[in-house]
């Protein structure tokens, strides 16, 4: 058993078998996390570099915890105060890091395709921790894990992604993964935050929130940044909140046993009300816990394959 991919660059094109294997493996790691000593020696001797060109707290901590709980050696490299500010190219940076004998690179980068580019200039296994507005595959996987944990399946579920679809890598990874696993996906946001030809993904596209929410099982709410208003994409945060914010009275449009998700960090009172964020249907904190288990599964499944196989 092994994944058919060598790197995790995105969920576009990743097979249902691969996604299932990652989610199934994550179940075992979630059990590990519940142990008295939530750590296993699986990746002892493996060195992983967390290469973060964008500020990130949650994703970096989540990856770092996943790595440590697998007993890997980890090194963090972030753009501020590093050679990046001296104008070193990504290629040179990676060549230098790789010369120190490492096995895997987890990369977060503001430019779409940077992880893909990395695979063309280095030997290590590359895991995308978010590139531009392109993909954030481990977030997509942990969102799917969380949905599957609750419903026991992904197939046939109606998932609505609400918010700044245009700038969201989380939306894209969720869309690819969920469609592959047989869910029905809709997206909803103001027209200026919906990129062109969105429907070609195979999703339904709404600019009316009530229409989008009708009959949905899962609502995944994206963060809306205040910069969008400065960039002229939104007239005001107030209007956004009024027309696209998820408040308690919107929930009655959803199916019974519905679920509210948010990849964080939340703008309470803008895209989500506090009441909704803290309701019993909210899985926002389980998402965070599951993130570590899913990232452990990804790291575990993409490691190895370096030597001979011993008899048991």
């Amino acid at each position, binding site marked *: 058993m*092994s994944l058919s991919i060598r790197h995790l660059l995105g969920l576009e094109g990743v097979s249902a078998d691969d996604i299932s294997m990652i989610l199934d493996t994550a179940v075992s790691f979630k059990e590990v996390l519940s142990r*008295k*000593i939530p750590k296993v020696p*699986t990746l002892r001797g493996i060195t992983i570099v967390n290469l973060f060109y964008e500020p990130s707290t949650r994703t970096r901590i989540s990856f770092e915890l996943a790595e440590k709980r697998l007993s890997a050696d980890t090194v963090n490299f972030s753009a501020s105060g590093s050679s990046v500010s001296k104008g070193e190219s990504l290629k040179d940076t990676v060549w230098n890091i790789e010369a120190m004998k490492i096995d895997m690179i987890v990369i977060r980068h503001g430019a779409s395709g940077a992880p893909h580019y990395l695979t063309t200039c280095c030997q290590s296994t590359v895991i995308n921790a978010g590139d531009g507005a392109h993909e954030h595959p481990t977030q997509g996987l942990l969102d799917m894990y969380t949905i599957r944990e609750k419903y026991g399946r992904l197939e046939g579920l109606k998932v609505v992604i609400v918010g700044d679809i245009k700038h969201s890598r989380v939306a894209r990874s969720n869309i690819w993964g969920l469609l592959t696993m047989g869910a029905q996906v809709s997206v909803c946001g103001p027209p200026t935050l919906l990129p062109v030809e969105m429907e070609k993904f195979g999703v339904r596209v709404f600019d009316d929130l009530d229409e989008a929410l009708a009959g949905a099982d899962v609502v995944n709410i994206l963060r809306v940044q205040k910069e969008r208003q400065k960039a002229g994409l939104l007239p005001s945060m107030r209007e956004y909140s009024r027309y696209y914010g998820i408040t308690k009275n919107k929930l009655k449009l959803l199916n019974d046993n519905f679920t509210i998700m948010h990849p964080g960090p939340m703008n309470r009172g803008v895209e989500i009300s506090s009441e909704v964020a803290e309701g019993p249907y909210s899985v926002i904190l389980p998402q965070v816990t599951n993130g570590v288990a899913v990232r452990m599964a990804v790291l575990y499944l993409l*490691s190895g394959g*370096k*030597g*001979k196989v011993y008899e*048991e």
Partner: protein
Amino acid sequence: MAKKSTEKIMTEDSIDQAVTRIARQIVERNDGVDNVVIIGIRTRGAFLAERLRKTLEDISGNDLPVGIMDITFYRDDIQDKLDHPVVQKTEILFDIVDKIVVLVDDVLYTGRTVRAALDAIIDFGRPGAIQLAVLVDRGHRELPISADYAGKSVSTSAAERVEVHLKEHDGADEVIIDRSGRGGV
């Protein structure tokens, strides 16, 4: 005069007897089973652990807790394998601190699986003691590990294969030595 390539060394009856004997030895050695818990190593060790629980209940009247352990994460050859073993869930839903843990597996061979299992158990807490019960001990240890309870000890060559079949998993109860030269367990 070629040797037959497979030989049955245990039958359904002898497996039953072995389990019963091990159960008696556990009771004897630990002055009862009040403080004993059982953990089976996936896959066949888990079924043997369940049989042992039943037998111990018949003997002692105590229903002992049984856990199942997947030792994949603790293996020492993970990074060398091209294919990753399928990971299954570990289920130990009881506290093992200060307990006598009887670890159960089907075959004891190099000792590496048991080594991995010992590490895993320790991560769940500090047990009072760990004892090892196996159905077959075939020798060729690569680590200083020995069984406290063995259903049968056989001398084998490294080229031979010892296959344990259990009804729950394989449809029949038997232990076979395969001499066709494929090696392994």
